[in-house]
């Protein structure tokens, strides 16, 4: 029986067009991520890592190609349809944490649940949020504002927020980029634990040490998968 891919990208291209020039960020990327995978994507600056992650997270639209999440073609959905999928199937962890300063830790984590339709009850939200904060050992900081926390703590809150919606896949963008090595290691250990517990992970990183922690290591070069042959063989 063929294993169903959680994520499937077929010949994805992304071209940025300005008045002066066209920049080909991705030149026909093919990619499959399966349930329980821990995939790292690395490559030199400008190879298209961030563009690929933005497309994976439906934060941006491809110029051409087909993109399927759990078998559903999401390449040409409307803004709101893409928002729904981001909310229900994707969890994000950003390099810059991207927490909202005006909201408390609890409210930051609760955000994805507040976008749910039909609306979740306050009690259900509270249970889910506290559960996730427990997982990242931050349940004692629910009333704090992000700027009252250290970088490592903020990233743990961001992980809790990414997990709270029970996503199909967690997309992680340079999770240690803004952290010192001690906090970086702690965050990476937490991600490894999550993967062991069954969470599918796709991470963009510069750091070969952290890239090696993934089961599958993909390399991008000039907008193409460098290990494409191996991938094709696998397919």
């Amino acid at each position, binding site marked *: 029986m063929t294993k169903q891919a959680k994520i499937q990208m077929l010949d994805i291209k992304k071209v940025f067009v300005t008045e002066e020039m066209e920049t080909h960020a991705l030149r026909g990327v093919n990619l499959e991520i399966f349930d329980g995978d821990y995939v790292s994507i690395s490559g030199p600056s400008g190879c298209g890592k961030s563009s690929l992650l*933005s497309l994976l*997270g439906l*934060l*941006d*639209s491809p110029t051409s190609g087909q993109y399927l999440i759990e078998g559903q073609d999401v390449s040409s959905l409307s*803004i*709101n349809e893409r*928002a*729904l*999928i*981001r*909310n*229900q199937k*994707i969890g*994000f962890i*950003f390099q*810059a944490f*991207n*927490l*909202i300063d*005006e909201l408390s830790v609890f409210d930051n984590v609760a*955000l*994805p649940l507040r*976008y749910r*339709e039909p609306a979740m009850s306050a009690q259900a939200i509270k249970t889910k949020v506290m559960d996730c904060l427990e997982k990242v050992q931050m349940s004692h900081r629910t009333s704090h504002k992000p700027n009252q926390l250290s970088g490592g703590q903020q990233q743990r809150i961001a992980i809790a*927020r990414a997990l709270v*919606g029970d996503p199909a896949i967690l997309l992680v963008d340079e999770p240690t980029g803004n952290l010192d090595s001690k906090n970086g290691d702690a965050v990476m250990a937490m991600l490894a634990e999550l993967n062991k517990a069954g969470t599918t992970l796709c991470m963009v990183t510069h750091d070969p040490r952290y890239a090696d922690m993934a089961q599958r290591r993909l390399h991008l070069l000039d907008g193409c998968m460098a290990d494409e042959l191996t991938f094709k063989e696998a397919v």
Partner: protein
Amino acid sequence: MLLFSFTQELKLAFLSLKRVPGFVLTVIATLGITLGALITIFNLNHLLLVKALPFPDAEKIMVLDHIINVDGQDQTGSQTIAGMQHWYQHQNSLKSMALVVRNWEILASHQQQPRLSMRYVTPEYFQLLDTPMALGRAFSNDEGKDSGKQVAVLSHQAWQQWFNGRTDVVGQTLQIGDSSFKVVGVAADSFHAPQLTDIDSEDIWLSWDANPYKDSGWGMFMSSVKAIGLLKDGVSKAQAQSDLGVMLDTGYQASEDRFEGETLKANLLSLKESVIGDTNRIALMLLAGTLTLLLIAVANVTNLFLSRAAQKQRTLAIQASLGARPGQLFTALFAESFLLCMASTVIGLLIAGWGFILLRQVGEGELPRLSELGLDVNTLAFSCVVGVLLALIFARLSRTVVNFNDLKEQLQSSGKGSGLQISKRTRNALVVAQVALASVMLVASAVVMEEAIKTIYKPLGFNSDDLVTLRVDVGNRYEERKEQYALSRELKAALLNMPQVDSVSRVISAPIREGRMRITLNDENMQRVGSFRINLVDHNYFDVLQLPFIHGRSFTPLSDDDYASEFVVSESLAKQLAPDGNILGKVFKNDPDEPIKVVGVVSDYFNPGDMEDGNGLRYYMPYFPIQGGFQIKLSTGASLSKLEVLTLLQSIDPQLRITELTKVEDAHKELLFTQVATAGLTLALTLLALLLAGAGIYGVLSYSTQMRRYELGIHMALGAKTGFVKRMVMAESLVPVFIGLAAGLAVALIGYALARAELEELIQPNITALVIAFPLMLVAASLACYLPVRKVIVDDPVKALRNE
């Protein structure tokens, strides 16, 4: 090198602005309209307050008036021709003196027989004002007082309008009224005659001796008489005033026409004082108003520039981190603001050109020197200076967005810099103020506009289709009452014989351009009932106008020797005279020996030319030939030309002239011009208020949204739908909008309560104004709230997150 660098910056700024057409349009529209108003009013103020009159030695030219002292009280405004001529012959204080009398006359030798504004002047008038001539010459010294010469000089406008600018007009003889005048010249277009007697333009100058009032005595005081004179060297204004005063009173006291207890003095005003009067106060108030408008516009546009700078903050921070000095960043920002402000200035100058035309129409009769309005070096320089100053202000404020002491923070943040930030409270206060101010303006505009529109569309109450008013100048030859009756009957019969005429009534007043004639009505015991508008008409007048009778009938036609014993009243007057409704048969008196009985009540009609009691307390009595006219009903669609009427008149008497031949519908439109102009101007102001408020709110909220763009990106990245983001931002943005609306409503109500007594005479406020104004303001404000959010939500979240 510096210039080259700035030129490069201008090119870059142009390319950059091409990408933000909405921002460019909003800034240029807001500033362009405001600058247009400011430039127009600056030009007016410069003209009235600063610019010298375009005449040599203008500061030494005096306007000579009389002061009449009656029992210790001074009265001004009227002069005697005898006094003026007395000065002209005997004065020693002035180097030169000119006499001027205004009058209206018919240009009889022209096919259309227009009624034109004439000035009878002595030759010194042209010499004192150094009148430039387009053709021919001005009056020579031998065409002055007592010369018996009848010569004319045409104004440039009259030459163009009535003589098609023909150069052979000089030397032609014109028939003006009953006299002939030889044209000796045409004044140049650049000659702006000073408005001495009123604000009317001058069409033709005629030699003094043709003046019909020249022999009037010391007892005849007229406002249409003036004199101007140039002070002799070494003679002060006070000295001349004293000498001329003594001379004037001596002449007056020696005359047979003097009144006991009255003395005359001279009143000398410089030509500028006389021409400008106290209109400089109006001009200054207009300037204050437009400067306030500019301040509001500048506050709004500043928000837009800050919002734009916030968008560019990261770019600016990168430039700064690469070593760009504050001055260099300022130059780049200045290039953008300079392009926008200069474009706005050009638009403003174009609008000012239109503003001059509007001001000439609206201000005619109220403000002097309007014919001189126009773009000149001073106005252009002022416009450029204002444009550059605004560009400097906007660039300086935009530059403060970059904090050179904390570049790292700004490079890492994505939109929320640590440079200049306007607090949320301040932003909300700005929105509240904008909405409140605009709401009050909208309510006021809606009230004024509603009044104007009501007047424009108000039915007249009679059928004005194919109705024509004719007035005939019969001269002074028909002095006997029988002759006058006979002539008016003959004219009426002749008019009725014209194939296109259905019916005719003789009238004293036209229905909607009626005179101000009121005659007191007394009851049977000669107790005064009131003074009401009266019209003397034929018995068929009501049929001609199709003015329906409510009760009774028209009066019985009179023979020449009969005196009126019946009359007809309007519905309103009937209600006032007999509140019980039994008006028919009631007897009143004008004259103790001539009782008159009410025999009919006709509908009221609306006269837009008489807003005091436009619906009219009127009464109608049988026609009596004073200086009358005819109300003519034409066949459907027929027309009546001046030539046809003139031919008919002259077949009866070659001396008869047409004073007026107007379609009632045209007169109606003409009378509604003020209302149409008011409605148009109010609509323009309303749109301007909406635009300014909209731009202001948009600027503030665009800035707020820009500050929150990154946060909104996060919401979207986490799966918030566009509707959620929209609702979230709009809910917050609309709070100050609603507070502003409530404040505006409160201010409007309080303002009305405070000024109720004064306002009720002018306008009748009602709920419609509020029903229109507030939803309109809410829609405009909602749009201004929505547009900045829309910019964020229509793009992929990655753009907000990267602050692209």
